[in-house]
């Protein structure tokens, strides 16, 4: 199944064009309210776009005769688990197969299999009202998967799950999504990297970036993708050996890939580890020095992540203590040009 979706939804400020190849898994990233769930809604047929068209393979789903949700063979795992309150977990999961015409017994067997996949076998007989948040989410995942759709739409499947089941479930999803056309909304870089072939980044209802998952997360072009990937980004124009932002920041770096000309829009991307923190500007070296104010300190593995607005630096706990860092401290973020990756925006 190849999904082609072009849609505008004026009430939600959405205007996107998206393609998911047969068997491909696309991760949809973007800030809250970017329009991710809306895109899934349009694909599932729950929301009629103002303009645009949706095709699955070459079958047009919109147009004169709108194909209703149930005839699309898509399954949507919505942000809210929305398990049917009057059915047991087992019957919730069996709902998809039964709707596809499978007999009760066979559907239940299949449902039991899916419940086992999400480690929820012992919840089979419970009503949704008797499940914890994470348990309900797992059953909802099983229900969506059990429908064995041609197009699978998952809205934050890992939400509410505890750290102990997440890796196993990610494994399960990876296996299940193999060869199945899927769009998965996530806020987690691991989901994007492990589950998706491609990443599409939405912001304010528009696609701001897309490409192979590893590439987008290694060399993001949009601030949000950089954020998800845990990278610092300064975007502006390439001029005189540095990327200069509108706000007056200049980050020197080494352009990679196609040559940049003076004035080209470009981004400078660097890892928090590559940032050194000083109380006063280090003298005379050819480094980039960005005066910032610390907004937050948080532990990050063995280190301390020093946040200053949208930039972050990782320093050792020892260094942090020595610099006497605290929110509000004015400091200099300094980055060696060799650590800064510069490429066109």
């Amino acid at each position: 199944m190849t999904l082609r979706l072009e849609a505008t939804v004026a009430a939600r400020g959405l205007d996107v064009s998206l393609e998911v190849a047969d068997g491909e898994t696309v991760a949809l990233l973007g800030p809250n309210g970017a329009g991710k769930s809306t895109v899934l809604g349009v694909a599932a047929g729950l929301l009629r776009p103002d303009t645009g068209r949706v095709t699955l393979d070459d079958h047009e789903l919109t147009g004169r005769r709108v194909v209703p949700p149930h005839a699309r063979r898509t399954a949507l795992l919505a942000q809210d688990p929305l398990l049917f309150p009057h059915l047991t977990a087992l019957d919730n999961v069996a709902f998809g197969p039964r709707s596809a015409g499978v007999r009760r017994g066979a559907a239940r067997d299949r449902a039991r299999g899916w419940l086992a996949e999400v480690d929820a076998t012992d919840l089979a007989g419970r009503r949704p009202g008797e499940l914890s948040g994470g348990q309900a989410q797992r059953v909802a995942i099983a229900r969506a998967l059990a429908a064995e759709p041609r197009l699978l739409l998952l809205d934050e499947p890992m939400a509410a799950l505890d750290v102990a089941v997440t890796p196993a479930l990610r494994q399960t999803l990876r296996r299940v999504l193999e060869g199945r056309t899927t769009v998965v909304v996530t806020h987690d870089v691991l989901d994007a990297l492990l589950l998706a072939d491609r990443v599409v980044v939405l912001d304010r209802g528009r696609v701001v970036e897309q490409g192979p998952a590893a590439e987008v997360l290694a060399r993001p072009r949009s601030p949000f993708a950089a954020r998800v990937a845990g990278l610092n980004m300064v975007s502006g124009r390439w001029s005189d050996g540095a990327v200069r932002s509108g706000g007056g920041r200049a980050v020197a770096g080494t352009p990679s890939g196609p040559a940049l000309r003076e004035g080209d829009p470009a981004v400078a991307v660097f890892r928090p580890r590559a940032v050194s923190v000083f109380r006063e500007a280090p003298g005379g070296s050819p480094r980039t020095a960005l005066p910032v104010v610390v907004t937050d300190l948080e532990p990050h593995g063995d280190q301390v992540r020093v946040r200053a607005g949208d930039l972050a630096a990782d320093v050792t706990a020892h260094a942090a203590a020595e610099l006497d860092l605290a929110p509000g401290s004015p400091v200099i973020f300094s980055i060696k040009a060799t650590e800064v990756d510069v490429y066109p925006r």
Partner: protein
Amino acid sequence: MTPGVPRWLLAPAALGAAFVLLPLVAIVARVPWSDLGALVTSEASRDALLLSLRTSATSTVLCVLLGVPMAAVLARTSFPGQGVVRSLVLLPLVLPPVVGGLALLYTFGRRGLLGETLDVLGVQVAFSTAAVVMAQTFVALPFLVVSLEGALRTAGERYELVAATLGARPTTVLRRVTLPLVLPGLLSGAVLAFARALGEFGATVTFAGSLQGVTRTLPTEIYLLRETDVDGAVALSLVLVVVAVLVIGLATRRRAPLRGPS
């Protein structure tokens, strides 16, 4: 744990309950218990009671068969003139039952709108038990439609949409999601319809007439009895009431409240 209700609410609730229950007590106090046995087992009463139960049950079934689709269409689709249709469907509620009976006569009677058509088909509804059922259905249907539509609107459409994305066709959605979810509403609607049908009198008498065993339901019997024996009529209504309580009690006994995930 239930959120409960404000304490002061108990006062008007009790007042309301008293207002409904006191007259029942007054009736019970008036019943001539010694005659009750004879009265209830008289052939006329027995026939009337059985007829009432049969026709009311049939009407309730008809109300469900016709009313569930009507409520679903009103609550889940939109079409031009929907508001007007909704108001019109309510009308039998307002029409004095006697006029409702007349309206039915003008429609299905021998000289009514459809009378000739029906005549040609060899169907004669007037003065038959079928006419009783029709009259009861006519007056009871709006109750089911209105209360079910309200329940459908309150329940919302979210689960139905989820079901559709799981591949359930509209019929499956209706059967496995919509109806189970609004079951409390459907049940109370059906109870209302049954009660209204059981108590129905004016439209029945006007449209179907009143012949023992064929069209004379218990309310009609009570009304006639009252002309000669008020206490007997009161006693017989008590029978009606007891029967209704039993039927309704049995029908709603297993009405466990459904809840969303808490």
